[in-house]
């Protein structure tokens, strides 16, 4: 299991290639990448991500450990960036390796659902005119109920 909370960009290809490399029991690897989007008005300049050093790592470890208990996983990777990001920048990635495709997909979705509302990150969007904190969505909370 690898958890990384970092300011620096990550190399998605290199991370995916190195992930669970050499463990022949994993027949399935799923990766998900979150990217800064500019859906609302088309004028997003910067997204700033704040986090709670210490608690963030603990929360991510807890979520990843729970995924390992619930599904048959050979390995789990979570990388989440903080600081100032531009539209199109990669924010985060999760990867799951499993002997079975279903476990790898489900565990990745579980990780994403919990990361959204149980890991202490907060996003602020800056446009030329305004700076607004991104509000949590009710549907993000509802998404946890299926697990």
């Amino acid at each position: 299991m690898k958890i990384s909370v970092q300011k620096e960009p990550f190399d998605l290809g290199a991370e995916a290639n190195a992930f669970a490399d050499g463990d022949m029991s994993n027949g399935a690897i799923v990766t998900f990448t979150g990217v800064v989007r500019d859906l609302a008005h088309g004028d997003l300049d910067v997204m700033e991500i704040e986090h709670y050093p210490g608690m963030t790592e603990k929360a991510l470890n807890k979520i990843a450990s729970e995924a390992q208990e619930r599904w048959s996983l050979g390995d789990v990777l979570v990388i989440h960036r903080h600081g100032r990001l531009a539209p199109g920048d990669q924010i985060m990635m999760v990867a799951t390796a499993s002997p079975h495709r279903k476990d790898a997909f489900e565990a990745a979705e579980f990780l994403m659902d919990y990361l959204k509302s149980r890991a202490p990150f907060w996003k602020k969007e800056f446009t030329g005119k305004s700076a607004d904190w991104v509000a949590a969505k009710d549907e993000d909370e509802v998404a946890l109920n299926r697990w």
Partner: protein
Amino acid sequence: MDILYFAWVRERIGLPKEKIETKAETVSQLVHELRAREERYEVAFSDLSALRVALDQELSDFDAPLTGVREVAFFPPMTGG
């Protein structure tokens, strides 16, 4: 006890962290004390349904006791991913 604030809570109160002496037994009592301090605290804590609390870096709730707690953090609902 260390009190930490994040995101718009930090901005409204105007600082990321402070040390306080308190006899509050629960998070609610602590919030009550903070609100009575100054307008900016009153504003930040006016709607508790918009806030989350962590005790020693674990999510908790406003009814929770503060016994043995060293670090309390207040912040809005999280928006990771």
